[in-house]
Every structure is written in structure tokens, then in C-alpha cells.
């Protein structure tokens, strides 16, 4: 472990080169812009810029590209808070409380909380990477299909158990999501499912299209009905908002620590940032004193998912470097880059390319600090966007949404799908069906189904595979408790206060 610090010290020497610092700033700014435009996304941004980096040294190149990634992560929070449009899957949970805060004139606070929490989450994850990198890689190897399914099960179950709406409505919404996720190629049999002969459906329903429609377009429809006005318009823009918010943040240290742990754990087990953000939100809601107020603009509801998502997003770099398994599309593109620079990700990377690896880790520290400073200075600027009259901003959002939906696959059909999802989102909101479980199921449904069927293939159909070792059974156990929590807590309260029914 001590030698890790020696390596890290050398890494800082490489990353703190003025040219590399400049690259960081450029990367973060580009990333924020990419993150603000829904649909463009970090993966596309990195892919477009990848060829530009071939003339640089591998370390400089990966610093630029990872900083674009950090910037996109920061930027994703901006649209979630201001317009209820999550640019990335893990920003969905940020909208639950971030957007209500913006609507009640507290956009600056919400953005500051989001950015700061992202930073905290990422920072804790990097510290963890520094300390226990080799151990963590070993732990990730223990995750076969059964363990992966258990983690997904936990994410879904905790959502059912923790939701504010009736569990039945959550389950209905989730099942619609599963059905949509099933469209396209079935990976296990190699057959097409539910495409009804339409070539447009070969690829299934893209998460981004669904989210842009359900949240973005749905939100515009709702606002139109409510009188063409953002309530955030009345917000006072105060340059000191960052400072004022910071003073309140230490109160929520418990939430932060909890979310960091959830995030790091989900990032290493290759489940990823999306379930991490949802789980952190769900647990914070259940545990917090202010839990009842979650969903109406509670700052803790922004801190929890943002911290967890970024802790997970950052610690997911570790399996990529140590095992060569990309945890996200962006990581996959970065992986392609590594190969072109002549670096083979895998167990030997840490030994043979120590300079590169520790330079990268050092750049994570510096990149996140540079990023935090850059985005915080722009908070008042972004918050003031809400002062633009809705009648002007709405068409702009609509056009950006349409462009975003189009760029996902360069397909006009997707723009139509986005509008259809917009109407579905509106109807679901009017009838009080929660949107989040639907989105969660679209994002993770495929992966969960795959893991489930792979486990059963391996076990020859025996369902006991989900209780076959201590690791998988404890995760499944947690999942069951989380899913049945409403029943359990009900039972407890009845036992404690035996009242006549």
C-alpha cells in the first residue's frame, strides 16, 4: 500500500504538467457542454474526439478524454435540475428533488448541492482506488451472473419497497419498463422479440429516447397545462448562493457517507452508477428525518443520488483498467483508445504501465478539483436560465430534445418515439404512476434478464443458484428485505402497539 503512495506521488508529477492542466480545463468545459445537450452524451463526445488524441502521449490523451467524461457527468446534473431532463441514466434520481427545488426558485442551491456531492463521491472513490486497487479487482472477479442478478434484484426490490406511491403502481410501471426492455434481439437465444417485423424496432427502445420523452416532453406538456410558467422564474439570483449552500451541506454528512459506500460498492461490482443512484435515493428517503418531504424539493434528495452515482462512476474505472471490462459505453470507447495507444487493459497494466495508471489516477484527483471550481463558478449563470420566459425557453428545449433524440441513432423514427413517450409520461404523471421504475426497468431490464438466464443456464435450471454461496445469498437476502419492507415495517408496528384492528 505504501508503494501505491510513492507511485501516486510520481503520478502527480506527470499530471500536474501545465499542458496537462490546460487539457483538463478544456476537457471539463467540453464535457459540460456535451452533458448539457441531451443525447450527445459522454460516450459520443469521447468517440468524436478520440482521433484528435492520437498525436499526444497516452497519459495526456487519457487525461483529456476522462476530463470530458467528468465534465459530462457534471453537466448531466444541470439539465436534470433545470428542465427535468436527465442527460444520463444516473441523473434520473437527481431530477426527483432537484427539479422541484428549481421550480420553487432554489435552482442555485440544487446545482451547488449536486456539483459538490458529485465531487465528494468521486473523491472518496479515488481515495479508495488509491488504497486498495489490487484487492478491489480481485473482488470484482467473484461476480458471476448469479451475483450480478442479485445486485439488480436488490436495486429493483429496494425501489418497490421504498417508493412513495402504492407498491402496486410502482410494480405496474416497472413491468411496462420490462416489456419495453425486452424488445429487440434476445441475447440468450439469438432471436428477435416483439419487433413485429419492423426494422426500426431491431435495436429495441433506447433508454435516452424514453427518458427525453417521458421527462422532458412530459414536463413541457404539464407546464403548458399549468399556465405556461416556470415557477423558478421568480428566483433571486445571488452570486453568494454557492457559499450559502455550502454552509448547510455538512449537516447531511451521514447521507454522504452512506451514498459513498453504496456508490463504491456498486461501482466495483460491475452493476454501475444507475442502480447506485436509485438505491442511495431510496435508502436516504427511508432513513432520513425529512424522508416524507422527498420528492418535493429536499436537498438531501439531491445529495444522495449524486454522491452515489459519481462514487460508482469513478470506481467503475477500476474494473476497466484491471480487468478490461468497460462498465459504461464511455468506458468502452476509452478502452478502444487504450488499445490504440498500445496499452492492454488487464491484470498486467498496473505492473507494466505503472506510470500511465498512476498518472491517470492522479489526474482524477486534479481533474475533479478543476471541474468543481469550473462548474461552481457557472452556477449563477445556469440558474439564471430559468428567468427566461417559458414561452421562449420551451420551444428551445423541445428542439434540443428532438436533436438529442435524433443523434442517438441518427434516426427520425426515434424523434417520433420521443413524442410518443412524452404523451405516455404526461398521462402517467396525471394518473400518479411513478415514472422512475419504468426508466429503471428500461435501463437495467435487459441486463437483469440476461444475468438471470445465464445463471439458470449455468446451474442447469436450478433456482438454488441464487443461494449457492455467502456472497450471492446475502445480496439476495438484502433484496428480499428491501422489497418486502412495507410489509415488514407494518408487521413490526403492529407487534409493538397491539391495537384492535
Amino acid at each position: 500500500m505504501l508503494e501505491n503512495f510513492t507511485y501516486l506521488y510520481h503520478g502527480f508529477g506527470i499530471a500536474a504538467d501545465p499542458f496537462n492542466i490546460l487539457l483538463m480545463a478544456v476537457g471539463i468545459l467540453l464535457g459540460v457542454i456535451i452533458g448539457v445537450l441531451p443525447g450527445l452524451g459522454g460516450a459520443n463526445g469521447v468517440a468524436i474526439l478520440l482521433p484528435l488524441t492520437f498525436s499526444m502521449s497516452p497519459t495526456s490523451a487519457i487525461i483529456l478524454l476522462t476530463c470530458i467524461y467528468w465534465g459530462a457527468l457534471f453537466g448531466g446534473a444541470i439539465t436534470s435540475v433545470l428542465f427535468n431532463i436527465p442527460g444520463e441514466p444516473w441523473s434520473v434520481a437527481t431530477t426527483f428533488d432537484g427539479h422541484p427545488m428549481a421550480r420553487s426558485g432554489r435552482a442555485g442551491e440544487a446545482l451547488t448541492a449536486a456539483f459538490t456531492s458529485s465531487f465528494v463521491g468521486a473523491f472518496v472513490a479515488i481515495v479508495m482506488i488509491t488504497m486498495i486497487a489490487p484487492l478491489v479487482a480481485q473482488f470484482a472477479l467473484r461476480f458471476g451472473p448469479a451475483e450480478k442478478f442479485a445486485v439488480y434484484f436488490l436495486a429493483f426490490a429496494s425501489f418497490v419497497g421504498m417508493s412513495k406511491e402504492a407498491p402496486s403502481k410502482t410494480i405496474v410501471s416497472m413491468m411496462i419498463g420490462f416489456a419495453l426492455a425486452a424488445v429487440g434481439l434476445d441475447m440468450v437465444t439469438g432471436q428477435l422479440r416483439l419487433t413485429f417485423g419492423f426494422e426500426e424496432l431491431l435495436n429495441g427502445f433506447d433508454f435516452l429516447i424514453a427518458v427525453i420523452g417521458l421527462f422532458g416532453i412530459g414536463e413541457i406538456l404539464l407546464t403548458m397545462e399549468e399556465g405556461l410558467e416556470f415557477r423558478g422564474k421568480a428566483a433571486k439570483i445571488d452570486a453568494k448562493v454557492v457559499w450559502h449552500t455550502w454552509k448547510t451541506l455538512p449537516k447531511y454528512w451521514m447521507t454522504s457517507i452512506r451514498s459513498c459506500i453504496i456508490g463504491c460498492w456498486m461501482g466495483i461490482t460491475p452493476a454501475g452508477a444507475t442502480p447506485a443512484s436509485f438505491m442511495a435515493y431510496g435508502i436516504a428517503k427511508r432513513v432520513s428525518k425529512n424522508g416524507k418531504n422527498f420528492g418535493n424539493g429536499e436537498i438531501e434528495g439531491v445529495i444522495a443520488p449524486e454522491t452515489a452515482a459519481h462514487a460508482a462512476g469513478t470506481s467503475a474505472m477500476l474494473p476497466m483498467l484491471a480487468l478490461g471490462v468497460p462498465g459504461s459505453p464511455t468506458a468502452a470507447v476509452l478502452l478502444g483508445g487504450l488499445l490504440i495507444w498500445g496499452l492492454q487493459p488487464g491484470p498486467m497494466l498496473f505492473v507494466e504501465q505503472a506510470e500511465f495508471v498512476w498518472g491517470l489516477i492522479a489526474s482524477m484527483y486534479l481533474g475533479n478539483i478543476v471541474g468543481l471550481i469550473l462548474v461552481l463558478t457557472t452556477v449563477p449563470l445556469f440558474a439564471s436560465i430559468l428567468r427566461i420566459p417559458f414561452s421562449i425557453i420551451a420551444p428551445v428545449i423541445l428542439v434540443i430534445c428532438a436533436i438529442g433524440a435524433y443523434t442517438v441513432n441518427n434516426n427520425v423514427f426515434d424523434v417520433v418515439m420521443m413524442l410518443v413517450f412524452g404523451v405516455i409520461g404526461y398521462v402517467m404523471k396525471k394518473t400518479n404512476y411513478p415514472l422512475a421504475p419504468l426508466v429503471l426497468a428500461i435501463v437495467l431490464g435487459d441486463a437483469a434478464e440476461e444475468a438471470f438466464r445465464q445463471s439458470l443456464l449455468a446451474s442447469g435450471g436450478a433456482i438454488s443458484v441464487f443461494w449457492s454461496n455467502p456472497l450471492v445469498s446475502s445480496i439476495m437476502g438484502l433484496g428480499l428485505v428491501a422489497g418486502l419492507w412495507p410489509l415488514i415495517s407494518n408487521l413490526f408496528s403492529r407487534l409493538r402497539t397491539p391495537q384492535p384492528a
Partner: protein
Amino acid sequence: MKNLHALGLGTLTALGLAAMSMVPAAAEWKPTKPVEFIVPAGTGGGADQMARTLQGIIAKHELMPTQLIVINKSGGAGGEGFLDVKNSKANPHKIVITLSNLFTTPLATGIPFNWKDMTPVAMLALDEFILWVNAQEPYKTAQEYEAAIKAAPDGTFKMGGTGSKQEDQIITVAVEKALGKKMTYIPYKGGGEVAVQLVGGHVNSTVNNPIEAVSQWRGDKVRPLCVFDSKPLPYTDKILGDLSWSSVPTCKSAGLDVEYVMLRGIFMPPGVSEEQVAYFVDLFKKVRETPEWKQLMKDGAFNQTFMAGAEFKDWLTKAEATHKGLMQEAGFIAAAN
């Protein structure tokens, strides 16, 4: 500057077109706008890695006057990408890289396309397949592993692979036939994930491409038993201890009579002119001369056969027949076919 350059090329092309009517041999087609490079597979896989390397090489050595843009269209086991090329009739600014799904996807899913719906350009290389086991397993040779499979009941040994009813499963079925024992085939999304599942001990063996598992081999986490080709690999650079790719025996010599190589080839949409095809054949010939390409071939232990024109078409016709036969025997053909 770059715009001026492009403008100059445009003029040249126009002149070239004018000249073509008089002296066809002197006319040379060049792309006049960015060329889309379709990858009918997801990011991070073998085809994607190769396409992005090509993009890098062409940009770095300025082998093409316009940009090459990689686009992943992986829907429907790559059917999405192939249909896009098929439907872009006579568009010379689009090329596609193939993997075995060129043959397997239409057969397994009934998605309506065939390699004859596109214009074959060139075979860049052939990708090899190797039988891998976890380094902690007791099997040092293919023979020992074969004996263990034969001695155990059907379905005891688990083979991990990429996708379903595609190359990895085709090889698995061929292995099963050769040994007369069933294995349990577990499909995963990508080759990298398959290699990690092998390292984690969640499957017993895989048939990963060399490039997908080489880093795990260097870390002494997995062990290559044999290569599914007719002759051993020529690469002698040391990878683990004294071992190199050339020390891996062929499966046939180890008593497992299965041979399979995968096409890494380039196609264009239907209806493009011969000059346009010739331009890209020439482009990829130049790519093959670059040090970066040679390094990729070495890292991935590729079979460096290059083909174009009639020779390539003959190869394709034979390969299609082979795949049809293999898939028919395995019962993988969709009802629609």
C-alpha cells in the same frame, strides 16, 4: 486550410470526372465528404477495436482527404448496420466492417440481407479462435481437457462465448460433435466480459479471439490449449515466460478436428462503381503498410491474408456455404429461411 484543401480536391474530382469520359484509365475517384464507417456490433468488441484503429491510422497518416467516422449500429445482432448499408444504394461514402454475423445473423434471425446485397471490397485479415481454460485448472493440454469432458456427464463443462447462434456457439457445437459430449453454452454480451468470466471461474472454458484474452494470459490468469486453425500461429514474441502465440498447438494436432477463422472484411453499399471500390482497396493496402497496423496484427495474432476482387468473392461464397452447413447441423436456422 483544410477547407481550401478540400475545395482543391473537389475541383480535382470535377476535372477527373470530366476527364473520365475521354480517358477512363486516368480517372481516379476520391471521397468528397466524410465517409461513414459502420460497425455492426457494439463498442469495445473485436470489430469495433479494429474499426477505431483503422480510423486512427487513416487520420494519423492522412491516407484519405476526408474524415472517417465510426458509427456503431449493433441492433438485431448487427442486422441494423447491414440493412443500413444495403439500403444506401450507390452511396460511395459508406463502408462497413464485418464479423461472422455477416453470415450468421440473416440465417439465425431471418433479417432480410445477404452479403450479395452489398459490394465486397477487401478481406483485411482473418481472426483466430483459441480454446482457453482458467490457469488454475489442472488441464495443461487440449488432450487432458478433452478427456475430462468425455469422462463427465453431458453438460458438466461450461463454455462461455459471445452472443447466441454466432461464431462462438458454432465452434462450441463443432467441439461437442467432435467429442461426442454436450457442453453448457452460456452467452455473454462481449468478448472482454467472456474472458473475465473465465478468470473468475464462472465458466470452464472459452473460445476467445487472441486479442480478447491476451492480457489475461500475460497475467497468467488463463491458459491457451489449442488454436482452431489449420497451422500454428506465426508470431514468436514472448507473452508469458517462454511461451508465445507460436507455441499454441493446433486443435487438430491435439485430436480435436475443428477449424474456424472469422472474416474481418470491408464492404460497401450495392451499386457503387468500380473506381470507388478500387479506391478503398488501395486505401486498405496502404493501411497494411503502416507500423500501427502491423502492431495490431501482432498483438491480436491475426491471420494476415489479404484478398480483393474475384478471389474475395469466391472465398465469401465458400464461407457462406460453410456457415449454412454448420448452422443447419446445429439447428440454428430461423424458421423463415
